[in-house]
């Protein structure tokens, strides 16, 4: 049982997932330093998996008993054309380091998840989405080429609809299972400044949220914070766009703020979160408020607190994200919120967003049209796992899907039901690659 791992096992905590659940212990870690001098991937006796920044929440980035290829050293840029915005970089580079170079030159990530501390390879392997999904689709849509290293020694350059197009579709959102990504190239988007113009609108119910989302269909970025403890589903709807202004000078120095140690596991409970949520909702006096902000607090509100996952204490937390189709979407989302509320499970930050109909390019991509709900649940043991299973059942029953990057619980049947292309995908999995997630969702059910 993963739970029986010793708490002082530094190997399993250094190479943990962001939710710190489940814990897993790699048999070995191979640190990669140069893309031109990679180890022979076919020579490992145990299954292999690339590990970037460990920002997947569940077990997609874990490989219990296997070999992890730590890609942190593969962080070099290869080319950046400042006139076209085409960027090629090694797969281990973080989006944060890319932004340091892109933004002063007037370019931005075409799609960004809620943290910039993921690797480029991780962004591709999970085909991440962001606040502009309804107009732009996923990150994978902007990948123009990438090099995949297979365990048989082949180094393949994949490109959409051209070279190895099938393997390209398997590798986008492929959870690192099709081989090791050495580098990737993507198309950045131009920005006039590092500022975002934001409009915040209060809503008192889920139907009100949907109305706001429909009215903002052309807004470049939209997202809503929702009070997961309010039965009606009150919250704040945010829309934003890159504002005119000036670009910053290239930055050289970074300040980091981090939660220095684990908070006691009981710090976050229904009471404290209820208080936080009430304050957050009322902090805004008017129903509609406009402001201008730097892109960091808009896109990465939690990145300012380095190891924010530690506020959940040693037991970690379960991050939950599902998408449910628009048909019955309000009713199903209400049912999910009711289940969370009934369980008294506190959620510090619950996020609601509509996914658009821009097709996701990967065989295993998560985003599809519908309403997506994301929140974290402090891990209180079996009761929390039971709640997540209830939520999963509701979402899957409604024809929805669960996000592998945030999942630690879904069953093989639920995986097959929500990822119908999984068999086509499995044919592209490198025979020497595997992950804790992959073994879990492809296990034979009793």
């Amino acid at each position, binding site marked *: 049982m993963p739970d029986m791992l010793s708490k002082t096992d530094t190997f399993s905590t250094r190479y943990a997932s962001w939710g710190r659940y489940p814990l897993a212990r790699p048999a070995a870690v191979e*640190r990669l*330093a*140069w*893309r*031109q*001098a990679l180890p022979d991937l076919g020579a490992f006796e145990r299954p292999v998996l690339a590990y970037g920044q460990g920002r997947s929440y569940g077990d997609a980035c874990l490989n219990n008993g296997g070999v992890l290829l730590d890609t942190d*050293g593969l962080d*070099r*840029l*290869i*080319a*950046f054309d400042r006139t076209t915005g085409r*960027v*090629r*970089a090694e797969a281990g580079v973080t989006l944060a380091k890319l932004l*340091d*170079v892109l933004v*002063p*030159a007037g370019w931005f990530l075409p799609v960004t998840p809620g943290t910039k501390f993921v690797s480029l390879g991780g962004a591709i392997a999970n085909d991440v989405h962001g606040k502009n999904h309804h107009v732009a689709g996923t990150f994978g849509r902007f990948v123009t080429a990438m090099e995949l290293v297979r365990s048989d020694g082949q180094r393949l350059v994949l490109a959409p609809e051209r070279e190895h197009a099938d393997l390209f579709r398997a590798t986008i959102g492929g959870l690192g299972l099709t081989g090791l990504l050495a580098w990737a190239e993507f198309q950045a988007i131009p920005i006039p400044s590092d500022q975002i113009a934001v409009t915040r609108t209060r809503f008192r119910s889920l139907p009100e949220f949907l109305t706001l989302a429909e009215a903002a269909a052309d807004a470049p970025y939209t997202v809503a914070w929702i009070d997961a403890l309010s039965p009606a589903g009150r919250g704040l709807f945010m829309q934003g766009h890159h504002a005119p202004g000036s670009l910053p000078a*290239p*930055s*050289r*120095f*970074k300040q980091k703020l981090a939660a220095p140690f684990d908070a006691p596991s009981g710090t976050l409970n229904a009471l404290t979160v209820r208080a936080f949520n009430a304050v957050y909702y009322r902090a805004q006096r008017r129903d509609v408020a406009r402001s201008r902000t730097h892109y960091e607090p808009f896109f990465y509100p939690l990145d300012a607190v380095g190891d924010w996952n530690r506020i959940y204490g040693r037991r970690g937390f379960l991050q939950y994200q599902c998408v449910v189709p628009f048909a019955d979407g309000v009713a199903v989302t209400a049912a999910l919120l009711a289940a969370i509320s009934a369980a008294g499970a506190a959620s510090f930050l619950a996020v609601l967003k509509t996914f658009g109909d821009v097709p996701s390019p990967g065989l295993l991509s998560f985003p599809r049209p519908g309403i997506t709900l994301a929140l974290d649940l402090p891990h209180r043991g079996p009761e929390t796992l039971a709640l997540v299973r209830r939520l999963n059942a509701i979402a899957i029953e409604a024809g929805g899907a669960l996000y592998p990057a945030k999942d630690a619980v879904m069953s093989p049947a639920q995986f097959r039901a929500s990822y119908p292309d999984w068999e086509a995908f499995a044919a592209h999995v490198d025979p020497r690659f595997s992950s804790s997630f992959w073994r879990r969702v492809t296990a034979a059910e009793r």
Partner: protein
Amino acid sequence: MPRLTVRRLLVVGATSRIAHETCRRFAAEGASFVLTGRDVAKLDAVAGDLRARGAALAAPFVLDATDYARYPSLLDAAVSHLGRIDAVLVAHGLLPDQAEAERSVEAMREAFEVNATSVLALLTPLATYFEGERRGLIAVLSSVAGDRGRRENYVYGAAKAAVTRFLEGLRVRLAPAGVTVLTVKPGPVKTPMTAHLEQGVLFAEPEDVADRIYAAMTRGRDIVHTPSWWRPIMSVLSHLPERVHKRLGL
């Protein structure tokens, strides 16, 4: 202290993680580089990264730093690419296996040649160059290991001690010519050089080390410890009486 203008750099051992990370800070300002390293593919990876980050020029020069006969052509190449050299950063080195260096004369000599002799040899024509220019900066990666001979790494430490002492004298010699000599003393850093060791809490991030080196280079400092808390630690360690040092087995 006036800020030094560092826009044209010669970097010896540019594939070292610390050197590369330091160069990134200058590249963001549009600096030009001549970069040396033994492995052409790795050197190209570093040069490509610096160009993508804004370097006006990043010219690779394949060199084994112990190939003394090629120093004149290195200096020629650097001057012809850069026009003049504002700063040299000497960063090549190897971490010898202490146990092997205790057994093998060959291993001991190699460690000393790479970490000390070749560094001092390189600085010989470079010091003359900068003395003639009457300006410029010589920055060299030494190590806190050079401040006290220690049981676990005295072969490495002895070589770094030679570098530190050499730079002390060189600094005095070049000061009248307006040339700055910077001794960089990192503690252990999380780099490929130390990847085989258990990287504990004393290991610094290369980004943080590079931030301090960049600051020290542009501010014309003489000595910089990275991270800064190594300075008081080494001050205590290097003043320990031998009797105590021996008993502690440090």
